[in-house]
Each structure stands twice: as structure tokens, then as C-alpha cells.
């Protein structure tokens, strides 16, 4: 019962809530955190060695070979951008709609966004081969008197992703400023200096809070269309190409829905261990997690509809190449990844229609991982099958993943988890101000119900604040 858990917040003291949320920040890292961090660093090392080897030998060590010149690296790029998609969207849209379950996920999902963009941004550079000249794509005065081609979606990506990163970083950091002030006031020595600088001298004065609230809603309003624009431009990387399986108008909304879907799943994957490890069950409740599960059902349905539409378009167009591309996607060399992602993205989320699965932490965690797997494989299949089976059968070719690419994929997860583990240890993983507002709201609601003698007995029996 959602309302009961919301009203239960009335019994939480803000001081206790702050102590609970800031416990990891104020204490030394635990052994479990150290183990996780070590594992993440090891994965990162695997990725670094793999990339180093590729830089030393050349792109030939990867499986990239004509006709499949975009494969796991661009898959990783699209996958991580998709993960990045949901964080700011969850936080900004739920803020604009004043959704009550926002506080449970907003901070972690914003952090997820930042780290996922930081991960995604590596892949186009890595895919260049000569990674050290990536800056050629930027518009800067140079001796060759060349400028970027602004009609290319690849250049538009640079602008979209750098803007998304900057705005998400501002939204995330400025949201944490009041919380850093709390850490500053509890810390001593160098930590007080560090958090003092990060908190910008925040005191909660009305002269600070008043413009701050206006800033926050403006940033949320700016971030929301930005989120939609980013994956739209990423989808243009494909849909502006005249290739069967890519050249479709449905791509922008289809990519956006897929990105939100994968991002929601990744939020579940990250928040469930965070909640258990740092004992935050009172603030990230089962009701909150259930709300995410319902959103996953919605986005999975949109995605399934998009998959079906793609096939319908291929059939309805009467175009042989389109029909062949889609037939081979399902029954060609890459039939296994196709059916894997279909099961993971279209059928597995249907389990959330049963309340038992929406209320089981283990089921949620397993399903979220399966969705993540499904979304990575979906991007892989989308990219590789179109390039492998384009117009002329004489130019068809099969792509095989090489160990360097697997190492770099592992490294990307290592890089992401390293950043995320640093975040949960050194920054407040829940927004204290928003939780405080939830407590005040719960107290007011509880008081109103008590005055009307409508407070449920189970709640009335609990100690009042």
C-alpha cells in the first residue's frame, strides 16, 4: 500500500535520515566496498590493456572487417548512451511532475547518467583507431582551413553528447550542493575543506534557496527536451544511411523508448544493491521499486510495438531488400542474438504484470540484468545484421567478435562501476533535501488524517514524530 509507506516517513527524524544516508560518506569504506572497487579496477585494467594493444597493433586486432565496420564499439556507444538517457530523464521529468517516488532514485540515476556518458564518449574515440586525433571533429581554427561537416549526424552527436554531459553534470552537482553542506558541517580536517569547497558556502539562507529553486526547475525544464534530442541524434547515425534495416523514420522514438527502457533497468540493477548494502530500505521502499517496474512494463510495450512496426514496414513496403534484411535478422547467421533480445526485451518484462515479481527484490534484480543484456544484444544485432546483409549478396560478410573487443567491453563496465562506487562512497546517494520534504509532507498528511480520525490503525499505533 503506497500511501502507508509514504505516511510512515512521518516517523523519521530528518537528523536520523541524514545520518542514515551519509553513513558511508562519514565512515571508512567497508570490506565489501573495497572488494567491489578492486573488482571494478581489475575490469578497468583489462579494458586498458586491450585498448593499449589495439593502439599498438592497430584496429586490425578487432573483428572489424568489411562490410561490418561498425560493431561492438558502436554497440557499446549506443548502449551506454541509452543507459545515460534514463537518469536525467527520471530526475528531471519526475521533478517537473512532482512525482513522490523521485527522491528514491533521482541522485543515483543522475550519477548513472554522468558516468554512462563518460563511458559512452570513449567509444567513438576508440573506434577511430587513431584515437589521438579525435579533436579533428571539433570546430577549431586549423592550418588545413577545414571545418566540420555540420550536415553529418556524427558531428551532431558531438554537440548533443557534450551538451548532455555538461547539463547533466550541472543538474547533478548543483542538486548536491545543499547535501555537501551537511557533510561539511559533520566533517573535520581536509574533508571539511573539500566538502566546504564543494558546498560553495551553502547555508540554507532564503537568499540562496529562492534562486536555487528557480534554477532547479529551469534546469529540469531544459534537460527534458535535451534528453529526447540526444538519442534522436544518435538514431540518425543509422537512419540517415540508405541501408535496409536502418533507413526508417521510426528510429528516433524507437531509440528513445529503448534508451529509457534500458536506463530504468540499469537504475534497478544499481539501486537494489545500494539499498541493501547501505541499509536504505526505509528511503528506497518496495513501493518505489515497484513504480520503476511499472515504468519498465510501459517502455517494454513501446519497444515491442516498435519492433513489430519495423517488421510491418518491411512487409508493407514491398521492398525486397527491406524484407530480406528483416528475414535474415531473425533467421540468418545472427538468429541467436535476435531471439535473445526479443525474449529479454519483449517477454521477460511481462513478468512484472504479476505483483509477486514486482514485490520480489531478487526477481527485480535478475529481470533488470536480463533487460540490460537484451538491450546490448539488441543494439549489436541492429548494427551488425544491416551491415552484414546489405543490398548485394556478393558483398555480404559475417562479423566475429575478437578478444580485444570483449576486453574493452569488460573495461567499460569496470570504468562505469569504478566511478559509481566512488560516488556512493564519497557523495550522498540520496537527495537529503527532497527526503526532508517527503518527511514534512508525510507529517502534514498524517496530521490531517489524524484530525479527521481517518488514520489507519496500523500507522496510528506507531510512534508519532
Amino acid at each position, binding site marked *: 500500500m503506497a500511501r502507508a509507506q509514504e505516511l510512515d516517513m512521518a516517523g523519521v527524524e530528518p537528523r536520523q535520515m541524514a545520518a542514515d544516508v551519509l553513513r558511508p560518506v562519514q565512515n571508512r569504506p567497508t570490506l565489501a566496498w573495497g572488494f567491489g572497487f578492486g573488482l571494478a579496477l581489475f575490469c578497468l585494467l583489462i579494458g586498458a590493456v586491450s585498448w593499449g594493444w589495439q593502439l599498438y597493433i592497430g584496429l586490425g586486432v578487432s573483428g572489424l572487417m568489411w562490410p561490418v565496420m561498425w560493431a561492438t564499439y558502436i554497440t557499446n556507444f549506443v548502449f551506454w548512451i541509452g543507459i545515460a538517457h534514463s537518469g536525467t530523464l527520471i530526475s528531471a521529468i519526475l521533478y517537473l511532475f512532482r512525482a513522490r517516488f523521485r527522491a528514491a532514485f533521482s541522485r543515483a540515476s543522475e550519477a548513472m547518467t554522468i558516468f554512462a556518458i563518460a563511458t559512452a564518449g570513449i567509444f567513438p574515440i576508440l573506434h577511430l583507431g587513431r584515437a589521438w586525433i579525435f579533436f579533428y571533429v571539433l570546430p577549431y581554427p586549423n592550418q588545413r582551413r577545414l571545418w566540420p561537416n555540420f*550536415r553529418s549526424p556524427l558531428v551532431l552527436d558531438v*554537440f548533443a553528447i557534450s551538451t548532455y554531459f555538461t547539463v547533466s553534470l550541472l543538474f547533478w552537482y548543483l542538486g548536491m550542493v545543499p547535501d555537501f553542506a551537511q557533510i561539511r558541517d559533520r566533517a573535520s580536517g581536509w574533508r571539511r575543506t573539500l566538502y566546504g569547497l564543494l558546498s560553495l558556502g551553502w547555508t540554507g539562507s532564503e537568499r540562496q534557496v529562492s534562486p536555487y529553486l528557480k534554477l532547479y526547475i529551469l534546469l529540469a525544464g*531544459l534537460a527534458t527536451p535535451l534528453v529526447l534530442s540526444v538519442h534522436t541524434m544518435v538514431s540518425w547515425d543509422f537512419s540517415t544511411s540508405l541501408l535496409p534495416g536502418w533507413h526508417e523514420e521510426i528510429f528516433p522514438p524507437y531509440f528513445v523508448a529503448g534508451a529509457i527502457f534500458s536506463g530504468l533497468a540499469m537504475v534497478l540493477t544499481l539501486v537494489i544493491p545500494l539499498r541493501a548494502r547501505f541499509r536504505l530500505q526505509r528511503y528506497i521502499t518496495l513501493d518505489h521499486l515497484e513504480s520503476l517496474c511499472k515504468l519498465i512494463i510501459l517502455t517494454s510495450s513501446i519497444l515491442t510495438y516498435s519492433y513489430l512496426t519495423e517488421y510491418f514496414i518491411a512487409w508493407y513496403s514491398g521492398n525486397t531488400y527491406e524484407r530480406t534484411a528483416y528475414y535474415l535478422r531473425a533467421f540468418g547467421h545472427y538468429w541467436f542474438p535476435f531471439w535473445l533480445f526479443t525474449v529479454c526485451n519483449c517477454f521477460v518484462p511481462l513478468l512484472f504484470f504479476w505483483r509477486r515479481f514486482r514485490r520480489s527484490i531478487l526477481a527485480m534484480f535478475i529481470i533488470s540484468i536480463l533487460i540490460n543484456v537484451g538491450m546490448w544484444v539488441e543494439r549489436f544485432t541492429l548494427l551488425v545484421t544491416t551491415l552484414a546483409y546489405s543490398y548485394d549478396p556478393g558483398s555480404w560478410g559475417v562479423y566475429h567478435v575478437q578478444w580485444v573487443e570483449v576486453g574493452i567491453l569488460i573495461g567499460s563496465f569496470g570504468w562505469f562501476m569504478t566511478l559509481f562506487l566512488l560516488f556512493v562512497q564519497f557523495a550522498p546517494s540520496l537527495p537529503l533535501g527532497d527526503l526532508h520534504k517527503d518527511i514534512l509532507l508525510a507529517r502534514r498528511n498524517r496530521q490531517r488524517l489524524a484530525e479527521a480520525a481517518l488514520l489507519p490503525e496500523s500507522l496510528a499505533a506507531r510512534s508519532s514524530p
Partner: protein
Amino acid sequence: MSAAAANRPAGTPLLGLAGSFAGAEQLLQARRLADAAGLDSEAFVPAPEEALIRKLRPQSTQNPVRLWTLLGGIGGGAAAFAMTIWMSKNWPLVVGGKPIVSMPPFIDVAFEWTVLFGAVFCALGLLRIARLPRLRFSPAYRPEFVVDRYGLLIRCSPAEEALARGLLAGAQAERIWPVRARLLPPLTLPAEVEDEEE
């Protein structure tokens, strides 16, 4: 010398009286009383509540942050159009039969820079208007003001001290203490300051 004395050297003029409150209602009551007495005051709130801020600052309907954002957005969009058009003309390369100045893709760049510069100027506007970052804290500030207590500083002269004290006490302030007009050293918090009066 005690920490309290260090923060309050002899001869430092009185800035006003500060009080801490358990709830927002008491804070609003104290603000209303201070306004009625014609005394300037500044509130501290632990949670950024819009409804409370609107009651505390009903005159603050203007939103300078919005203006900063608008100007930043317009500037960013205009700069993006100027950049894409000029660079395309400076290196006129026909791609896919499209015009040299192809506005549809340029609109995408302009949209991104509108949002980018709007957001950056929004943040700069906050820093300017809220006078952040600050390394030195108001001596009225207490760490509890960002945790669970509301605070009000009533600026007054020594002659008005008794009146201000009466206003704070009338609004059920939990604690009341005099504040001297002196900023603390950089990054030094008044957490170590002992209570003067209960």
C-alpha cells in the same frame, strides 16, 4: 579565550539577534512579527520547500535566474547559427547534393547550444544572485539550519535588541543569541560557538 569569545571580540557591533525554530510555522510567525515591527530579517531553511519560500519572500516574484537563462539560450542559439553558417561558407563542400547552408541540421546544433548556454548561464545566474561561492559564513549560521532547524536573523541596533528578543521569544524560538557584524575566517563554521543564551 573560548571559541565563542573568538567569534565575538569586544567592541564588535551588534548585527542582530538570531533564533532557531523547530518548525516552519514558528519561523513564519517570527518573520511576520519582524515585518510588523519594521525590522529586516533573513531566514534559514533546512529543506528547499517552494511553498515556504513563497511565503517568506512574497515580493520575490521576479526571477533573475530566468532572465540569465533566457539570455544565455538566445546567445547560444545565435552563436550556433553564426558558427555553422560561417564555417560551411568558409569551406564550401557539397555533400549528398545538399545546399552549402543546410538549415535543418544547423537547427540541431543551434538547439543544443541554446540548451547548453541556457543551462550554463542559469548556473552562473544562481552564483551571481545567491552570491556563491562563499568561503566565509554569516555568524548567524548554525549547522542545524541545513539539517532540521529553521533559523531567523533579525537585524537590529542595540536599542532594538529587547524588541527583537521579544519577537523571537513570542514566536517560540528554541534558542536566541546575539550576532555580531563580523564574518568568520574562511571555511570556519560557527559550530564551535557556544550558546550564549537559552
